[in-house]
């Protein structure tokens, strides 16, 4: 298969970027999108030209490192990660536009590589649970109903790729933060930090400069893990309850008269 590629080239964060056209020939339809880029890079190396920088790690759709916008859609046409997108999904001779994830909070490092550490900082703010190092509690004292477990795991499968942010017209990270908060706040292990988690993760999310949700739902439509929009409803609920409830450090006191 032959393709024309319009690839975003940008040497540095501060530099102005532009599209550069490449043609690739003799591509196996079973090659993944990243393997096709590998072949292009091998050729560029032989020609002693600067290769196209792009992110990838596991290449089996579970790590969330690959992050290409293919034909204006984060991760491409199939709602899977970029590495699980195959060239058979494109027509022979097609022109394919490849860009980095577009968001002010994800500055471009080089070409197709963006800095998504803003998401890491949101996790650091509250995406953890305290673990006891002393005697373990009796497991039956922490029952998890199968429905709750399923719901928590459906949110926990978020791989943190950031496609939700790239698809959002507002550049919001609500699906990501919602998935993390839903995952931990539903399970007994996450109860100790429940209120603080919603507060500090939303605070960090706002501080990073992510936009607000207007319920377009585009995030869910590109999510390779098919995370449902209701995690955003859960986040809204958890945050409202946490923020508007009285600080436990400042309980009301009672006096006669």
């Amino acid at each position: 298969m032959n393709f024309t590629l319009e690839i975003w080239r940008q040497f540095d964060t501060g530099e102005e970027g532009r599209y550069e056209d490449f043609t690739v020939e003799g591509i196996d339809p079973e090659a993944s999108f990243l393997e096709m880029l590998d072949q292009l890079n091998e050729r560029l190396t032989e020609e002693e030209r600067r290769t196209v920088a792009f992110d990838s790690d596991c290449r089996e759709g579970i790590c969330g490192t690959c992050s290409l916008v293919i034909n204006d859609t984060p991760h491409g046409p199939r709602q899977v990660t970029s590495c699980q997108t195959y060239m058979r999904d494109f027509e022979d001779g097609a022109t394919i536009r490849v860009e980095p994830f577009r968001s002010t909070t994800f500055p471009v490092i080089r070409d197709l590589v963006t800095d998504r550490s803003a998401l890491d900082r949101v996790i650091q703010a509250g995406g953890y649970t305290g673990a006891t190092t002393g005697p373990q509690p009796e497991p039956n004292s922490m029952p998890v109903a199968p429905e709750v477990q399923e719901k928590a795991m459906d949110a926990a499968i978020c791989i943190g790729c950031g496609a939700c942010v790239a698809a959002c017209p507002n550049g919001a990270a609500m699906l990501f933060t919602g998935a993390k908060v839903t995952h931990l706040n539903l399970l007994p292990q996450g109860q100790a930090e429940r209120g603080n988690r919603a507060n500090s993760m939303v605070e960090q999310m706002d501080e990073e400069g992510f936009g607000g949700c207007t319920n377009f739902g585009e995030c869910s439509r590109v999510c390779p893990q098919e995370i449902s929009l209701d995690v955003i409803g859960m986040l809204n609920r958890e945050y409202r309850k946490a923020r508007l409830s009285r600080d436990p450090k400042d309980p009301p006191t009672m006096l006669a008269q």
Partner: protein
Amino acid sequence: MVEFWRSTIGKKTFVAVTGTILVGYLILHMVGNLNSLFGPTGAEPRVDWYAGWLRELGEPLLPFAGALWIVRAILLGSVIIHITGVVQLRFRNRDARPARYPARKIGRSWESGVMMTSGILLAAFIVFHILQFTTLTVDVTPLHHEQVYFNLYNAFQEWYFVAIYLVALILIGVHLRHGIWSLVQTLGLDSPARNRGIRYGATTLTLVIVVGFALVPILFWTGLLDAPEPPAATITAIAGGLTG
């Protein structure tokens, strides 16, 4: 509360709550308007009686028109919070997304994409609407205080007023179809099990509101509602002109 308002989710919640208040008012307003469908019954049209009743509501606990002014204050407050929240969020969202790369439309409804446009036009319409039927400033057609039926009848004999009101109603429909579902989601009340019902519910409520409001101008314009008796003020004016 201040911290809540500063956050994106907090602002959204304020927008959703004030949106709920405004939708609630729209329903009451629509039901109240339907009083004009009784026609110019007898000495006083039913809608005129209704308008008077609204002013006397709560007496003697409240002063004359007290309830009316309380509702007006709540509405004004809601509109101000609604617009302020949305505008502040809009600036945030614009900064979060690089301007030269608008997000491709994957599956979002067109109504959700035009909330700002429909909102601005609706705000302009509300100002016009108050100037016409509350302050009686836009008196292209004859308008008289406390003679609602007479005012409505005359205004809706003109095709352009009918057109303005019907266009405004379409805008309300566009705004509410996304808005009603959106506020339920923002308040965290939606769930996968309820989503279908809430989506249909939002569309149905939107249709009921739009059709309910639209009946009034349409029925006046098509002549299904009879002309009112000339108001007392006009009769005196004519009589004054004759004797003078």
